[in-house]
């Protein structure tokens, strides 16, 4: 049975994506029989390429993929360079997962309100510092270059890359490398970039590609922070597929295929850039220079990170203030009148969505954790790592733009006669939850010392006894963390929930986004916080539970990491 696990996982990760892509490819050549369109040809493609502003849309998606990844990677590496193995780093390990758990849409709303000309920062500074009685007419949020979009994406992707870097850091013995380089007199930042990054980056490559893919094709953040006219390609595809003129569905299909090409192109350019950078810095690496701008980078990093963290906290605080505001006019720094009405409205309507969110998240995550443990256990019993193929397949759902294959998937589910609803939605969530559970569990699982099994066997335990009574309990902390990560991913899913559930399945995320269309920021604030509280609570539980369970087994807390 265990042997089948890798194949099952591979099938779950790739078949729906492939089928969905096919479901987009066929209509893009004009074949959609239900509309009486059976003239196969390049009509939709011609219409797509003739669309005004298409070039700008493509460029925006392409650039926001590359720029976001470049900045997020630089920041993550700089952060690690400065804080690796300091107290701040320990703190970060704890804080990072909840940071990741804040849904993209909530974070984007927070940033938008923070930096808008009538936003929180402007209100804090006006009129005493700026002299503004009325908000200035400045295009900051949704700017044409997509800068605010990229800023919003960077805010979310830095924690993701940091999380993805933690396991490889242990794997390459970064601590030893650092101490060795420092003992040779290298500065902290130089030592980091010369001895750790060359070993770390290859292990971080796929997560970086996932960042490029997400940033070049996401919907939720782009809708809130991206330019509106022309918008990034993914948003334009959504508009086409929402157009009442049903012929636009075929253009949307062609657009979805174009989105694959744009995302793949951005990743290809990145790979090319990797090579170039590799060649360029080789000389630097072995030059023997002990210190190269260390002080400057350290100052930059020390200045930048408090600003980033402060901005995130201010953004969330502003969201919170909105959720309790009745009247909050510009330029008041705080709401003029307060109310609980928005929370009342949430309390009245959130019960059903919270229940649905929870059962779907728990079910899909449980299923994913079981599957991943099966794969990893199979790997261990056969004594070999499950090849690069599976490692790559894990990333397929993260690398292929969602907007492209979900529509095809809906068609497929319909053809299979699967009734839309909770079951189908849960099945869809597994495609996206599984990779994250794998990524957050695999390293800890592999690093568990095989000696524990032998020890258990010598003490008279059967093979399964060793697994259930010794190894799994020792993995409690990483298992729970993986569970929290998976649940957070499930809670944040919008498009899948919406489309596979035919709108019948309401989760906190679909509810929050439906109300976002109404534009009332105070209500959006209350819902965004509700949406964020669930995954954050999940992480808090994942952190607290082992401490409670092992309260008189202190060794179990440290050893399993």
């Amino acid at each position, binding site marked *: 049975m265990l042997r089948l696990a890798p194949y099952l996982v591979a099938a779950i990760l790739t078949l729906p994506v492939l089928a969905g892509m096919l479901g987009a490819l066929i209509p893009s050549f004009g074949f*959609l*029989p*239900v*509309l009486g369109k059976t003239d196969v040809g390049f009509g939709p493609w011609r219409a797509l390429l003739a*669309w*005004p*502003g298409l070039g*700008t849309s493509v460029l925006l998606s392409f650039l926001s993929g590359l720029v976001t990844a470049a900045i997020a990677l630089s920041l993550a590496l700089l952060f690690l360079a400065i804080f690796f193995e300091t107290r701040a780093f320990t703190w970060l390990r704890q804080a990072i997962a909840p940071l990741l758990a804040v849904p993209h849409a909530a974070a984007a709303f927070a940033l938008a309100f923070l930096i*808008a*000309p*009538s936003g929180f920062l402007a209100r804090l500074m006006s009129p005493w510092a700026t002299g503004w009685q*009325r*908000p200035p*007419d*400045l*295009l900051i949020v*949704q700017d*044409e270059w997509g800068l605010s979009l990229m800023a919003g994406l960077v805010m979310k992707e830095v924690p993701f890359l940091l999380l993805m870097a933690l396991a490889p850091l242990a794997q390459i013995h970064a601590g030893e490398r650092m101490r060795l380089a420092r003992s040779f007199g290298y500065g902290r930042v130089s030592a980091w970039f010369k001895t750790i990054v060359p070993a770390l980056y290859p292990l971080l490559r796929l997560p970086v590609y996932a960042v490029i893919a997400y940033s070049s094709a996401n919907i939720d953040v782009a809708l809130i922070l991206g*330019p*509106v*006219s*022309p918008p990034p390609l993914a948003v334009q595809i959504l*508009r086409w*597929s*929402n*157009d*009442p*003129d*049903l012929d636009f*569905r075929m253009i949307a299909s062609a657009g979805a295929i174009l989105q694959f090409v744009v995302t793949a192109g951005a990743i290809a350019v990145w790979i090319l850039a990797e090579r170039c950078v590799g060649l360029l810095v080789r000389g630097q690496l072995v030059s023997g220079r002990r210190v190269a701008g260390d002080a400057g980078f350290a100052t930059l990093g020390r200045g930048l990170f408090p600003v980033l963290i402060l901005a995130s906290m201010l953004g969330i605080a502003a969201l919170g203030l909105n959720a309790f505001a*009745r*009247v909050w*006019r*510009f330029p008041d720094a705080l709401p003029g009148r307060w*109310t609980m*009405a928005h929370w009342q*409205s949430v309390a009245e*309507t959130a019960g059903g969505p919270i229940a649905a969110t929870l059962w779907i998240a728990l079910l899909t995550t449980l299923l994913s954790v079981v599957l991943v443990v099966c794969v990893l256990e199979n790997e261990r019993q056969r004594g070999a790592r499950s090849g690069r193929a599976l490692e790559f397949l894990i990333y397929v759902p993260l690398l292929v733009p969602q907007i492209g294959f979900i529509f095809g998937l*809906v*068609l497929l589910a*319909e*053809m299979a*006669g699967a009734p*839309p609803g909770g079951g189908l939605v849960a099945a869809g969530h597994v495609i996206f939850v599984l990779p994250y559970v794998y990524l957050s569990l695999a390293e800890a699982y592999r690093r568990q010392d095989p000696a524990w099994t032998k020890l258990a066997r010598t003490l008279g335990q059967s093979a399964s006894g060793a697994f259930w009574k010794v190894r799994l309990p020792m993995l409690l902390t990483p298992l729970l963390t993986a569970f929290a990560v998976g649940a957070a991913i499930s809670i944040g899913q919008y498009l899948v929930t*919406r489309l596979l559930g*035919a*709108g*019948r399945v*309401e989760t906190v995320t*679909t509810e929050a986004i*439906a*109300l*976002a*269309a*109404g*534009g*009332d*920021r*105070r*209500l959006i604030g209350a819902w965004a916080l509700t949406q964020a509280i669930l995954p954050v609570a999940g992480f808090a539980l994942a952190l607290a539970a082992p401490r409670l369970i092992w309260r008189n087994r202190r060794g179990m807390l440290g050893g399993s990491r």
Partner: protein
Amino acid sequence: MLFRRGMATLSVILGLFGGSSAGAADKASTEWTQVLEAARGQTVYWNAWGGDPRINAYIDWAGEQAHERFGVSVVHVKLTDTAEAVARVLAEKSAGRSEGGAVDLIWINGENFAAMKRNGLLFGPWLDRLPNHRLTDPANNPELNLDFGVAVDGLEMPWARARLVFYRDTVVLPEPPLNTDALLAWTRENPGRFTYPLPPSFLGTTFLKQVLIERAANSSALYNPVSEADFAAISKPLCDYLDALHPTLWRQARSFPENAGGMRRLMSDGEIDIAFAFSQADASAGIDSGELPATVRNYVFDAGTIGNVSFLAIPFNAGHSNAAMVLANFLLSPEAQMRKQDPAYWGSATVLSLGQLTREQADAFRNLDLGPAALPADQLGTMLAEPHPSWTEALEAEWVRRYGVR
């Protein structure tokens, strides 16, 4: 409350025995009784825009009533865009599912209705089967038989009336511009203080149509398919106007609010001074919730503003068409329409003809307080009809061609 309860009883009676004077009507009432029987125990999946908590609450209320009175459960599928529901029905048709579909009832009008009708995605005709239909006095209200110029043909039920109204804070702007020329003159003096939602959002496109109807040399061409007209010539006044207007708009027209809600938020943040909505109730609701200042008032253009009717339609493959009809009929009852028009709940104007109601009911409608920002019915001016839906598509395409590129 007593009054409301009385109306409830009345509407049940109307619902059960509506129009039972002649033999044919008896047959109709027997048929309706069969519909009611078939509907009992079914669940209606009602696909309706879910962006306004007040509308959502109204739909919840209607669901509770339908459950109590007719044993029909209602699930509100909250859409961000009506086309989502159209897409769902379409996907079902592609997959060959001709019954048991996921969508039972859609709140719809204009382009989406035209598209569904054109593609054979609608159930019916069913409108004449509803006992409450006669309360709309269809013979004397021709606008209920046309949806953006497309014949309704009994395929959808009129549910709500909408009117384009502008609003502004009377303290900031006591004398607002009352036509498109005055608006341009005002934005030139006050750059950055006006905008409109991004077409093809419903309200954004409506603004384009409003300007075009006012400025077109011959607006009658707008009421026939665009293919029969010289689009470039007729739309030229609109394009000239926008060319002049855009540099004076919020963010120099380099960005636009996403929809009506986004525009109201700009108003709330003090970024703009004039906004508009497709309902008298929008500004009042904003005042009530504290989003807008208490001194905000609606106003309309001298030459009138666009108005339309929105409808409820049932897809061809709806799994619960009987229950959908029962719910629809209840929504057309004086009680449900009254609550809908009451700004305390929603504030959306009724489609009923007051002449068809009892005097008590009609007076209740007449005496209803429409909310702080609302104009009294006699000051609402001329209602301009929606152009043919083909103009919507043509205008949106032209807008994107001219202004959607940088």
